[in-house]
């Protein structure tokens, strides 16, 4: 990445789009410090989290992360997956952890006996929703989503997008990297276009999609408009 600056206010939803290798996932992983940026600063709620004496594990409880490949804990069932952070990190009691976990799972539509299923017994869409519940249960200040639907079969994408839309509409602070333009148009407060390690353009969805200013943006959008249903008429 060659110099990126970004700001999200509480309750906002921002979506990053762009070609592969453009630095989008790297950016996300820098924010929850899975990758340590070589230079620059990151502030969460006014506090610098890239500082020297910051306890990373504590910071990460405030930042939720949803992975492209779900990364559910394979040896635990859905409920235990969501509970683990609550009991081991937040040190909640079994009872309250279970209650909160079940509520989070309910929010993403995983109910009944499904909560006792193991990741290998769940479909991709179900696994990703559990992943979202796991992040949500920690009650983070911001949620990062790294191409959450890219590893899903087409017919399973919808259920996850619906959960994400619901999340955005209920006031969560979200930063998502995704190719799902429809979702972005619907809920994003701002679209950020990244390519070759820099943000080349950003703006309100209507602006960016219909009247992109940079040629790079135009090129990218041109190659995916037919796929994602932004019709030719809209462009004019």
């Amino acid at each position, binding site marked *: 990445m060659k110099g990126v600056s970004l700001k999200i206010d509480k309750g906002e939803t921002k979506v990053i789009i762009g070609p592969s290798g453009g630095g989008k996932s790297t950016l996300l992983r820098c924010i*929850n410090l*899975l990758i340590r940026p070589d230079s620059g600063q990151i502030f969460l709620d006014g506090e610098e989290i890239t500082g020297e004496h910051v306890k*990373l*594990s*504590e*910071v*990460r*409880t405030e*930042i*939720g*992360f949803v*992975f492209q*490949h*779900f*990364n*559910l*804990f*394979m*040896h635990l069932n859905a409920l235990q997956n969501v509970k*683990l*952070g609550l009991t*081991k*990190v*937040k040190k909640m009691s079994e009872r309250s952890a279970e209650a909160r976990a079940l509520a989070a799972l309910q929010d993403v539509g995983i109910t009944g006996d499904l909560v006792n*299923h*193991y*990741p*290998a*017994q769940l479909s991709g869409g179900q696994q990703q929703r559990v*992943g979202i519940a*796991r*992040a949500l249960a*920690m009650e983070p200040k911001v949620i990062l989503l790294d191409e959450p639907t890219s590893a899903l079969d087409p017919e399973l994408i919808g259920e996850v997008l619906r959960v994400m839309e619901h999340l955005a509409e209920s006031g969560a602070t979200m930063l998502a990297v995704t190719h799902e333009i429809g979702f972005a148009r619907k809920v994003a407060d701002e679209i950020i276009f990244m390519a070759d390690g820099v943000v080349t353009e950003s703006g309100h969805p209507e602006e960016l999609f219909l009247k992109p200013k940079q040629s790079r943006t135009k090129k990218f959008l041109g190659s995916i408009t037919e796929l994602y249903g932004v019709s030719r008429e809209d462009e004019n």
Partner: protein
Amino acid sequence: MAILDLLIQYWPLFLQGFETTLILAATGFLLGVAIGLPTSILETYASKIVRWVAIAYVELIRGTPMLVQLFIIYYALPQLGIRFDAMTAAILGLGINSGAYQAEYFRGAMQSVQSGQMDAAISIGMTRAQALLNVILAQSLRLVIPAWTNEAVYLVQYSSVVYLIAVVELTGIGAIIGSRTFQYVAVYSIIALIYLATTLFIVKSSHSIERRTSIPGLKSSQEQRV
């Protein structure tokens, strides 16, 4: 029949030897776990110097014969003033040897657990240590079962080596009974059969353990030769 007569006459001795073999193999195995598991964690996660020491231990032990290691512990260490009785030396030798191999098996198993698991664990605020304990270990211990089975079989067989530092286990009993009856072939055939039966038992048990601890939905690992 020579074999049957021998069995009937000498079964207490055979049993005694077998017992000793099992004790040697079991304690060697446990010592191996106690040494190997921490070593593999150090090899992967510790600071440079500590990692180097761990790797050196593993490479040195795996590159030299167990018998040589036994001789060093039993015959050479006294030169430095460290004296062990034969049985202790045998267990130490087996354990230290097994530890190096087990470290490699654990290391392989931990690496097989996808890196995404670690990422997910620290993303919900766990420290690396917590992630290791709650997420990585639970999965790698299951993955290591086939290698552990091999190691258990290996230890039962190689425990026979301690015969050469005069510990009387099953093979040693063979020499004793053999020298009394001169029925060497019959005696060692019985002993071979006992070892074989033990090996088969270990392999069968491990298959059932693997089945019982398998994660629902995931296919249990097949004969993993690490």
